[in-house]
């Protein structure tokens, strides 16, 4: 792009800037356009789970429902409450969306389609995510409403708490790939990290779910408890912006999970030069698969209480992620993959050559580490679930509940 402009007689610096602006607009719009689709998807999915049809009147399969909603929102009256801090009040919804969209800047969709492959990419998206937290604080404070402020505070206490296990588990792929650049992390995944460090992947996913405020952690918008929370005074398009931010964020966490733990654009030969579009589709397919999981969780699990949510974080997730980090730290070091040696072994033929020709030499290089870490992770996972199980039993005993059998699928089926 920039080269083309330069070749047609533009100043090099100016061309660079123009190309960047265009790229930024395209990438950011992609995020916004995606919401329109994802809202439709989400409503259809919720409908199916709850044995309804979902939107089906406007357009084929109700596809235009979201456009109708946008049209309605545009002509809604926008009420600014008395005593609100006007500038901050107006700025908060913009910041909420901007903080989430900005994450798209570092997401690699294939080995060339990436906004900016920063060498601190992982930290960048955590840092930018904290701007969205700030937006909640601004909204809650500027509304001049007790409930808004209260809602904002408990939301922030929750978001901030779940950031800790998120970052601790994030350190694991960084450590395995030896880089914070998103692109390098994808390239390091000849074996997707979910098969190497599933515990980290699970912690990351759970804490990201809490960051978004999706069920079962949707206390940020607990309608039945604090009449909606920080965005209570917002109406019309500004309220819609908070909503949009949530939808983009829900999708962004799926993309991030896909990239950091599911191998990003790699797999089935995707991402090789010449298959750029396939790589992009790969990322989207993986993301949508994770998104289906998020939607399923949202539509089937009840909301948990805030004290349980905090206790789960600080007394289970954080200690677990600390232990997980220590285990990975000591087990991974002797098995740092030696790509050059693996390539040589594959070239030499024999058994390694056979496997190498099927899976690629990177796979051979990462295999020992993956096996060791996977075994350790399975043990850790078993121990953690056993711990939770014991805890649940003691709590039930404390409450005097004796003969409660866990509800099993077979019991449901026999009814």
């Amino acid at each position, binding site marked *: 792009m920039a080269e083309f402009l330069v070749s047609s007689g533009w100043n090099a610096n100016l061309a660079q800037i123009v190309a*960047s*602006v265009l*790229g*930024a607009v395209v*990438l*950011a719009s992609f995020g*916004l356009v995606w919401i329109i689709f994802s809202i439709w998807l989400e409503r259809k999915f919720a409908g199916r789970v709850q044995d309804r049809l979902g939107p089906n009147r406007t357009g084929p399969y109700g596809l235009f429902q979201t456009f109708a909603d946008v049209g309605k929102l*545009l*002509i809604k*009256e*926008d*009420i600014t409450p*008395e*005593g609100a801090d006007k500038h901050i009040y*107006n700025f908060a919804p*913009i910041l*909420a*969306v*901007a903080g989430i*969209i*900005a994450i798209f*800047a570092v997401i690699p969709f294939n080995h060339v389609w990436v*906004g*900016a*492959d*920063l*060498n601190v990419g*992982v*930290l*960048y998206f955590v840092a930018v995510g904290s701007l969205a937290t700030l937006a909640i604080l601004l909204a809650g404070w500027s*509304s001049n*409403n*007790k409930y808004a*402020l*209260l809602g904002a*505070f408990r939301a922030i*206490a929750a978001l901030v*708490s779940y950031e*800790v296990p998120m*970052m*601790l588990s994030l*350190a694991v792929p*960084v*450590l395995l790939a*030896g880089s*914070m650049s998103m692109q390098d992390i994808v390239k390091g995944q000849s074996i997707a990290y979910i098969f190497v460090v599933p515990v980290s992947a699970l912690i990351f996913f759970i804490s990201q779910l809490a960051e978004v405020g999706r069920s079962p952690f949707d206390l940020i918008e607990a309608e039945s408890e604090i*009449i909606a929370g920080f965005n209570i*005074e917002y109406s019309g*398009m500004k309220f*819609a*912006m908070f909503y*949009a931010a949530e939808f983009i964020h829900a999708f962004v966490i799926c993309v991030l999970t896909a990239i950091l733990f599911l191998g990003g654009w790699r797999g089935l030969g995707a991402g090789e030069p010449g298959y750029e579009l396939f790589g992009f589709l790969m990322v989207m397919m993986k993301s949508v698969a994770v998104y289906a999981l998020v939607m399923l969780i949202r539509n089937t699990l009840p909301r948990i209480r805030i004290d349980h949510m905090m*206790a789960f974080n*600080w007394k289970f997730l*954080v200690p677990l992620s*600390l232990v997980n980090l*220590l285990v990975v*730290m000591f087990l991974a*070091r002797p098995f*740092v993959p030696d790509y050059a040696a693996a390539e040589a072994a594959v070239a030499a033929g024999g058994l390694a050559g056979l496997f190498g020709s099927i899976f690629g030499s990177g796979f051979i290089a990462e295999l020992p580490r993956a096996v060791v870490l996977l075994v350790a992770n399975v043990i850790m996972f078993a121990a953690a679930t056993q711990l939770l199980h014991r805890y649940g039993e003691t709590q039930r005993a404390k409450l005097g509940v004796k003969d409660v059998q866990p509800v099993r699928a077979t019991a449901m089926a026999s009814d």
Partner: protein
Amino acid sequence: MQPNEWLFIGIFLIVALILPAVPIFLAQLLNPKRPSKMKQEAYECGVETVGDAWVQFKVQYYLYALVFLIFDIEMLFLFPWAVAYNQLGLFALVMMAGFVGILGIALIYAWRKGALEWL
């Protein structure tokens, strides 16, 4: 430094701020404006507002933010260390384990003191 990449990030942040402002601005042009005293009151389920919005908060919020801050600072050391991980020897590993361990002790202390309870 890759100056162009950071230039892109800067431009992207500006674009990300402008994009959501557009629909809000459009709505500002299109929507009806009939303000009234009742409408602009703080919404408290129909009950008249008493006092101002500044309620007294529990110290618990502060304690959560405090523990978070300490762990956040840990990331400052953890991430460069993780990037350099493949070149480090056993000594560096033990040092970082000690660092994480000390913070783990701090977490256990906070737990014991009840700083992590939601009251």
